[in-house]
Every structure is written in structure tokens, then in C-alpha cells.
């Protein structure tokens, strides 16, 4: 497994280098190199996950290492889809290194996995895990777009058009894409939470058990719900929306990792070190 992850890290890192060079030199072929390397890495990554799945018969989320691996995989997958939809070349400068770092972290985590129990084989669990991860990956991108938005807004407001002003797209595009990411993320998070409840009901016999991760997930969900509501109701957009996307993602990261380290609960098994 180690070597497979290292190769994935390598693909994503070289892709990052391509995007970085593109940022500085602005040649189209550099972007294409970065993009195709990312896709190649993603295919490799996907093949590895499928292989692990076939080998163990369950989706590989038995420990933190595997969970993080899946998280990195969904970030890249979601980014590739958004890239095709919105053609936002510059976002690669955020997504590729993010994926590389996530995978690098995964490679450093211990590898022993818990015994595969039959609880991993439920349809609801698979649905729960994949939708949640897709949702989280979308929020990660929304956070990146929020950061880019704030940078571009600052350049325009302060009237100092430096390095980034020329390279970043329009505020409108950044804002709209960020919004799209949040809508997608929110939809998937909702489905994922619902699937989680159904699964909890089937395994533990109750929908809700005040597990800290459950509580924090719902807090995250409410946060994004508020953001979306405000946008639709009073037109929260631009700066505020960008800041909220960043805060939302910080809370999400805490839900994903922090809860497991600081608080106990039945999700522990998925992120056991």
C-alpha cells in the first residue's frame, strides 16, 4: 500500500509543480501538464481504491490512513468535475497541492487496519461515506474559491494590481463557482447525513445517539444551511459568502478530524490511528 500512496503523492506533487509554473509563466501547456498529471494521478488513485475494495470486500475506511486516502481522492475527483464545468484554471493551484498534502499525510499514518467487520458492508454506509466525502471535497473547493475571492477583492479595492490581479478570474466567476460548490456540497452532505441516520438505525437501533461527530456534523450542516439561506433570502454574496465558506470549512475540518482526537464516539473506528 505504501508504494501506491507514494506514487499518488508523486503524481499530485508534479501536477502541483505544473500548476505553480502555470501561475508564474502563464503558458497554456503548463496548465495542461498539471491538469493531465492530476487526472492520471486520479485514475491511479481510483484503481488503487478499487483494488483495496476487491481485496478486502469493503470500502477502505478502516483507519485514519484509509479514510484520509479516500478524502484526498474525492477532493481530486470533485475538482476535476468542477474544472470541466467552470473552466476555472487557476483553482488547480489550490486543489493539486491540497490533494498532495492530504495524500502525504495519509502516507505517514500507520497502516494496520482493524479487522473488517460486517458493519462495513451496508449499502447505507457506503452511500453515507461517499456522499459525505463528496460534500466535504466540494466545501474544500468552496473554501479555496473563498480565499481566491478575498485575494482578488483586496487587489481591486486597494487598487494595487499586483501579481494575482492579472492571474485570477473575475469576482463574479469566483463567487458564483464558490456558490455552486456550496450547493453541491450541501446537497451531498444532506444525503450523507440522512444515509448515516438510516444506517445508525439499522446497526444501533436508533437514529441519533449524541455521538460528538453527529453533533458536529449537524452544526456544520446548519452553518452551511444558514449561508445558503442568507444568500437566497437577502443576497449574501461576495466577501461575506467567501468568509463564511472559509469558516465553514474550518468547522468541517474539526468535525472530520478534531472530534476524533478530542472527543470519543462511535465514529472513532473510522479514524483510529
Amino acid at each position, binding site marked *: 500500500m505504501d508504494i501506491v500512496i507514494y506514487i499518488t503523492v508523486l503524481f499530485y506533487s508534479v501536477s502541483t509543480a505544473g500548476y505553480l509554473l502555470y501561475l508564474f509563466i*502563464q503558458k497554456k501547456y503548463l496548465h495542461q501538464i498539471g491538469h493531465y498529471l492530476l487526472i492520471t494521478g486520479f485514475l491511479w488513485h481510483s484503481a488503487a481504491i478499487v483494488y483495496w475494495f476487491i481485496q478486502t470486500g469493503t470500502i477502505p475506511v478502516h483507519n485514519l490512513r484509509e479514510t484520509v486516502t479516500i478524502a484526498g481522492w474525492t477532493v481530486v475527483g470533485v475538482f476535476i468535475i468542477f474544472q470541466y464545468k467552470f473552466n476555472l484554471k487557476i483553482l488547480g493551484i489550490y486543489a493539486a497541492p491540497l490533494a498532495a498534502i492530504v495524500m502525504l499525510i495519509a502516507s505517514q499514518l500507520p497502516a494496520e487496519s482493524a479487522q473488517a467487520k460486517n458493519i462495513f458492508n451496508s449499502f447505507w454506509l457506503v452511500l453515507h461515506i461517499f456522499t459525505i466525502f463528496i460534500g466535504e471535497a466540494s466545501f474544500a473547493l468552496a473554501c479555496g474559491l473563498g480565499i481566491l475571492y478575498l485575494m482578488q477583492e483586496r487587489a*481591486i479595492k486597494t*487598487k494595487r494590481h499586483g501579481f494575482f490581479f492579472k492571474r485570477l478570474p473575475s*469576482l463574479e466567476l469566483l463567487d458564483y463557482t464558490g456558490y455552486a460548490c456550496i450547493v453541491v456540497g450541501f446537497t451531498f452532505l444532506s444525503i450523507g447525513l440522512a444515509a448515516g441516520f438510516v444506517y445508525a438505525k439499522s446497526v444501533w437501533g436508533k437514529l441519533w445517539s449524541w455521538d460528538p461527530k453527529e453533533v458536529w456534523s449537524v452544526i456544520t450542516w446548519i452553518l452551511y444551511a444558514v449561508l445558503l439561506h442568507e444568500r437566497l433570502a437577502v443576497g449574501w454574496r461576495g466577501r461575506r459568502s467567501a468568509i463564511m465558506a472559509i469558516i465553514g470549512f474550518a468547522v468541517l475540518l474539526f468535525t472530520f478530524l478534531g472530534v476524533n482526537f478530542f472527543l470519543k464516539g462511535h465514529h472513532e473506528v473510522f479514524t483510529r490511528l
Partner: protein
Amino acid sequence: MLDIILVGLNHKTAPVELRECLAFSKDETAAALEAFQKDPAVIEAVLFSTCNRMEILLATDNRSDALKAAKMFISEFKNIPVASFENALYIHESDEAVRHIFRVASSLDSMMVGEPQILGQIKEAYLTAISKKASGVILNRLLHRTFFVAKRVRTETGIGDHAVSISYAAIELARKIFGSLEGKKVLLIGAGEMAELAVEHLLRNRVGDIVVANRTFERGVELAKNFNGKAIRFEEITDYLKSVDIVISSTGSPDFIVKRNHVKGVMRSRRNRPIFFIDIAVPRDIDPEINDLTNSYVYDIDDLKGVIDENIGDRNKEARKGERIVDEAVIRFRQWYESLNAVPTIIALRNKIDAIAKTEVKKTLQNLNHLTDADCQAIYRMTDALINKILHDPTLFLKNNGCHGNKSIYLDTTRKLFKLDE
């Protein structure tokens, strides 16, 4: 062998009064080319003239006569003594002439580096020269290379990127805020050349409705008609802030016309959609504090000038890359030009035929095993003799002046006919 020379003057060497005197209209250019054709020293000629420059490109076998002829011609045609413009003229020969025309077409020599019109102007002048059959092998090739180089400089460097005029800079900013300008509503407050120019640029970017507010309503109605827009009264501006996206202001008012609380008040009913103020007026019309509100952006004339200065700096930096491309192209052109000498062409032709004959004979001999070495040698000798006989007349023709003066056309044809340039 013909020489390339270039005689000309531009905004750096000649004041505008002189450039005006020496400008050639399209018809005058055609007449000039006809006159050049009558001169025995001038073999090929192209002339182009813009408001910033006048340049004559000549291919000649007698450079001093051609130069004299060019000066005399300008003097007679424009009715101005040679002495009064001679000092403003620059004269470039061979490589330098090539470099100059490359630089001019790539807009590296322009008053505003990177301006895009010059290439079109040269193309037009070249078409005139072609229609008059004034240009020949050398200048045709030179001009084609010129267009190629200019295009390369434009696509491979950022020399034409980013606006260098106030109104374009404003449009570029608007694009950075709104992305596409299609369907955006524009409010023009006051009037003025620069503001109206900006509105015209916006219209070209397919903005939506134009609303015009003027202190004198009649003037507003008149302006609105020009833009196919709608005139409103000055007092209605605050109401319209609710719906417009871009505000261009250029009035003579001593006070701010749009104040912070006006914009703050409408932001909610705008549902926070961004609004962009372009303040061209001095003293300013738009309260600069509006820029501190979220989703509203204010640029005054100084801000826009700052943007332009920055862009000009960038263009000059990019121009250096352009110079490198030009240098490279000059060397390439010289290689072609030198190949127009008779000797290298004859050698290249011989080598090509030789190589073909050698491979074919070798192929044939491989299947004829019964031949002795002596037989093979005989066959080789026969091929050599064949080549010599076949190439005898063409070689003589190219070496001697069988073509009277303009040998380059035959050399060029030979090179093309036998594909010697690959």
C-alpha cells in the same frame, strides 16, 4: 545580388509637422510605387505611411542611386526641399533594415508599444505594392516573414495585454468584477469625451440598458439618443442606484454627487449585487468612501492612471521578449537571403540530385549480384556523367547573368522547384 535598404522617418526622428508633410495616402502610395518602378536602380519597392511614420523599403542593385532616387522622389512628390527632411531620415541596410521592419510591424517601435493597428497598416501597404507589382521575390519574402514575426510577438509575449487608455482600463476592471459585461446596466452621470468613449466601449461589450442623467435634462435626452438609452432627471440618480451595475460619472460639480449613505441605503434592495463606480470627474463626483462598502468599487481618474502606468511597465517588460523573437527572425531571414547567392544554390541542387542517384543505383545494384566490381564502377560513372550533363545548362544559367540583373527570382524558383530549403 540585391541589397535591401530602408529609408524612413518616425515619431522619434521627425516632428509632427514634418510627418504631416510627408504622409502618403493610399493613392499617393500607389503613384509613388509606379514612379519607383521607372527608376532603374530600384528593383522592388514597398512604401507605408501612418500618422507616426513613413517608411520606404527597397531592393536594389545600386544602393546609393536608389537612395538618391528615393530622396529625390519624396522631395519632388511632396514639393519640399531634400535638406528640410534629410536630417530626420534614417537609413538601414540589409540586416538592420530587416530588423527595423520586423520591429515596426511587431509594434516594438511604436509610440505606444504594443498597439495593434500598425500590422494592419503594413499589410494594407503591402497589398498596394502587390497590386502594383512593385514588390518581388525579396520583399515578398521579407513581408511575409514580417507578418509571421509580428504575429509571433503578439501571441508569445504579453505586449498587447492590458489596457493603456483610461476608458479601456475601466472596462478591464469592470470585467474583473463582473466577468461578462453582457446585459449589465450602465448609468452615465454628466457628459464628456472620456466618459462617452467609455460608454461606447461598454456598448461594444454588449452591456444592457444605458441610463443618462444630466443637470440639463435636454442635454441628457440628446446624449441618451446617441447611445439608444434613456434620460433621467438628476434627482432620480439615487433611485437608479438600485438597479444599475456600472456608474460612469463626469460632471463639473464641486461636491460629491453620490455619497456613501446613498449607496449603503440601496445595497439591501440591490441584494448586494456588485456596483462599480468610474469617476472621471475632477473634482470627484463619487465619494471615495463608497469603496469601503462591500460589493461596491470606486475608481477615480488617478486610480485608473495608476493602473495604466502599471500596464505600460508590463508591456515594456514584455517588449524585451519581443526583441529576442525579432533577433532570431533576423538571423533566419539572413540565412534565406544568403542562400540566394548562386553558388550555394548550385551546390545544394547538385548534392540533392547526387544523393538521389546514389541511393537509387545502390538499390538497383543490390539485386544484380552477377555484376562484377568493374561493372558497378561503370554504372556509377555513367550516373555521374548523367548528372553532369543534366545540370550543365541550369548551372550555367544560374552562374552567368542569363537572367539579367534580378537573379534572385530564378534562384528562389530553383530552390522551391527542388525543395532545397528543407
